[in-house]
């Protein structure tokens, strides 16, 4: 009995080993066939043929935050032959999966790395640069971590939650030699490049006033907290912002209208227009010295949100240039106008119409281009700079100044008085406003070190 059992076991073991061997042979043969077929089915572009760049030579990019913005510009990233999207990160599982699926579909593989925590994405090999689009509460913090990890950064605006955080972004990027491109893509638009050239060449005389019109802000009503949707890491989503329970309208865009997490339309679209003001005027490296603003806040009896529905702001630079921001009317009426001593130029963004006095300036106007084309030019500029180590058109200093100007305008509105800024000391001449520049991060997040 004992013997037969042992014999059975021996046979069984031998049989199993034969089976495994057979399987291994089959697998091996399959692999050989696949290897042989491989080059036939791999697209030439993957190998760097047909004018494209081989994956190993491409700039490896990771997407941090796959929200609506990242989704809307994804095609532009995928269209660039010399970059490879290698990873995507979002603390909402459904968004993370959506991003990685679309990237994998484009490349025809399953290589896209998925992470919930951007720190894990930063630790992956092969990531040279990151695209950050996490919203105002996260963009600055993620930029600081990315720069410290040696990554180059394309960061959507608004670039930071507080003025202090903006300063840290600038310092860290300088220290690590980071190539930083702010998401103010209008700098790469031919229309605004034309406006800038006209003004820099003095064709409307000395620039005296820039007026910007952005659209009215929204508001949300008080909400009852609800259970966090499955697959959503709410603590991570909040990041450094003060804790609050999950409420749907807030989580789905309403965060833009609360001082704890954003700054309303001023920091949303306002930073883009402020950026144009300082760039076109040639004042990228300084801030206005005076800010004031008034506005209509949401009726607190009805609404929970705090940022203004409409507003009128003004500022003045040291050289006398005045800036005015009007938050009113609808989306389609957004515009910028530049008035000089001898003429003016006005851009109606929605229609792309450009008017000027003298009218003859318009003969120099380039052909209109789409927002997508301008974004792609901005992205192209960034990737070129990653390769050449030059400063992109929206470098960290200019991006930080644009952000701080937007914040300063919000402070002036909240405090209801004119604020004066000291460009040398980099602070307000106002004790209360100076205290508003800083927000201690929550949740163990730190800008330090």
């Amino acid at each position, binding site marked *: 009995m004992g013997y037969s059992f042992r014999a059975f076991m021996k046979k069984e073991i031998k049989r199993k080993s034969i089976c495994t061997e057979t399987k291994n042979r089959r697998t091996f043969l399959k692999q050989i066939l696949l290897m042989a077929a491989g080059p036939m089915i791999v697209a030439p572009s993957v190998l760097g043929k047909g004018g494209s760049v081989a994956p190993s030579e491409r700039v490896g990019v990771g997407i941090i935050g796959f929200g609506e913005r990242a989704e809307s510009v994804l095609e532009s990233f995928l269209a660039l032959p010399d970059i490879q999207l290698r990873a995507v990160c979002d603390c909402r599982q459904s968004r993370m999966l959506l991003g990685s699926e679309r990237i994998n579909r484009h490349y025809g593989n399953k290589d896209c790395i998925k992470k919930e925590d951007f720190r894990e994405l930063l630790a992956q090999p092969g990531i040279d640069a990151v695209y950050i689009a996490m919203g105002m509460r996260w963009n600055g913090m993620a930029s600081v971590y990315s720069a410290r990890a040696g990554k180059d950064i394309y960061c959507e605006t608004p670039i930071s939650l507080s003025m202090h955080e903006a300063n840290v972004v600038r310092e860290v990027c300088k220290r690590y030699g980071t190539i930083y491109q702010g998401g103010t893509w209008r700098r790469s638009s031919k229309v605004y490049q034309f406006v800038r050239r006209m003004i820099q060449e003095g064709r409307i005389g000395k620039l005296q006033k820039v007026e910007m019109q952005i659209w009215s802000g929204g508001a949300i009503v008080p909400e009852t907290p609800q259970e966090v949707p499955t697959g959503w890491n709410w603590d991570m989503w909040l990041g450094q912002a003060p804790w609050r329970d999950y409420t749907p309208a807030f989580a789905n865009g309403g965060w833009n209208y609360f001082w704890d997490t954003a700054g309303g339309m001023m920091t949303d679209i306002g930073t883009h227009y402020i950026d144009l003001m300082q760039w076109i005027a040639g004042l990228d490296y300084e801030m206005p010295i005076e800010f004031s603003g008034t506005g209509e806040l949401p009726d607190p009896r009805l609404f929970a949100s705090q940022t203004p529905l409409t507003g009128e702001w003004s500022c003045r630079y040291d050289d006398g240039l005045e800036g005015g921001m009007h938050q009113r009317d609808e989306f389609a009426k957004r515009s910028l106008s530049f008035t000089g001593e001898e003429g003016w130029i006005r851009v109606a963004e929605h229609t792309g119409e450009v008017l000027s006095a003298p009218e003859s300036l318009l003969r120099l106007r380039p052909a209109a281009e789409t927002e997508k084309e301008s974004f792609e030019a901005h992205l192209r500029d960034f990737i070129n700079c990653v390769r050449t180590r030059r400063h992109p058109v929206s470098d960290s200093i200019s991006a930080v100044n644009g952000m701080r100007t937007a914040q300063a305008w919000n402070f002036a509105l909240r405090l209801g008085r004119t604020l004066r800024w000291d460009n040398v000391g980099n602070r307000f001449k106002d004790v209360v406003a100076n205290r508003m520049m800083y927000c201690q991060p929550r949740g163990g997040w730190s800008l*330090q070190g």
Partner: protein
Amino acid sequence: MENFYKTTQEKFGPRWNKRIREVFLAVILSICPAVWSQNLSTDTVTSISLPFLEMDEKLTALSTYTLDKSFQPWAEAEKSLGNEAEFPALEMLMTRVINNQSTPEARNRACKILAIIGTDQTVPILGNLLRYGLRGGELRDVESACYALAALPYAECAEVLREELEKSQTASESARIQMINALGSRGDRESIPLLGQMALSTKNSPALAEAALRALGQMSGPEALDAVTGSLTENMNSGQEHLVEIGYEVILNQAVTIQRDTINYNAVIYEGIKNSKAVPAAIRRSALLGLIRSAGDRGVQYIRDILLGEDSSLKSAAIAAIAELPCGVSSSGFTQLMSRLTEKEQVLMIYVLASRADVFAVNEVIKALESERKELRAAAVKSAPSLPIGAKMIRSLISVMELYPSDADLVVRSLIRLPEDEMVDLYLKKLLDEYKTGQKGKKKEIMVEKLTLVLSERASAGADAPGSVSAESFSK
């Protein structure tokens, strides 16, 4: 106390004067911190219940705020931020919200306002909230208290944080990290010994040690540096590589601060980190940058040393740093080393040399224009417009177009971008004429077409007076 109010109300009747009540509350409030600190000085206290004060309507509305309720009371309170005359009353109201049986949302909002307007009178109240959060309350209360304690400019804030950090060994890690971060934000040098101990992974969790290290990074001076340096060996021995990396990162941050005091000291730090192979490449590159920036003209030697050495991880950063050297520094020291670089590094060098714009840089770019290597040639074509332009550079660009038709569009773009100069245009016209008349033979038709396009684009882009330019050609 509730009984006392009842008695008082009975005595004064229903028309009890509201003003008297407020004055009374203010007196109670002013002695509250003292009473609380007395209670808390005994270690036996593990949890605190916030004392109940009678609330007026305003206080009730503020204190009971939750996300689903009207924001009006808080909108009114925040409106007062604009009027300094209202600050004393606002401060009192906010401290009452904290002292009250308020919701966490309300306490958080009160702390945010106090962070802006709070006087030193606020600090004990915030200290109490911190203790409440640490001993049985919510983490949110710790976060709220730390928010204000990190921001207010009073030394007492750091004292409270230090004291509670030392005492709260049993508190949650998140709460302790929040306090460490607040101390770091304050740059509180007196907490260096405590944080130095916390930075050791043998005694603390990695997350706590990381927070302590980063907080130390905010404190300048030799004591903080010693504390971080001391942690390196111990964290290395305990196999906490992540903490060692953060330690180096933090030292680098401290070097920036020290830079303002003594230049040699920071150079020693930069040099040490740059040369340490154990340190991640990003941190070493940053150290190299710091070293070059602090060295002025001597930065040339540091860059040359890297380019002559075998350490490939720093070469790209060294080449990029050439752009940051003072204007007077000649490029000759770097162009001599081109042959020692890899192809990729040479390409980067060409881009960087364009920012130097001296005769050596020009010659190197012209040499690259003659290269058979496409990448290097393309870099030279793109860099050319940034350099001082002479006939030789233009001829070299034209040669690229002749020899490599696939580069033609790139060259056209560069020729258009060449600086506005009469000589440049005249020279381009002369070359065009030579092609037209057949003096120049190769690919005559293509060259005539391309040069015509270049001259037309340059004329439209460079027009001085409105009306003298063809809008049609500009939009081509």
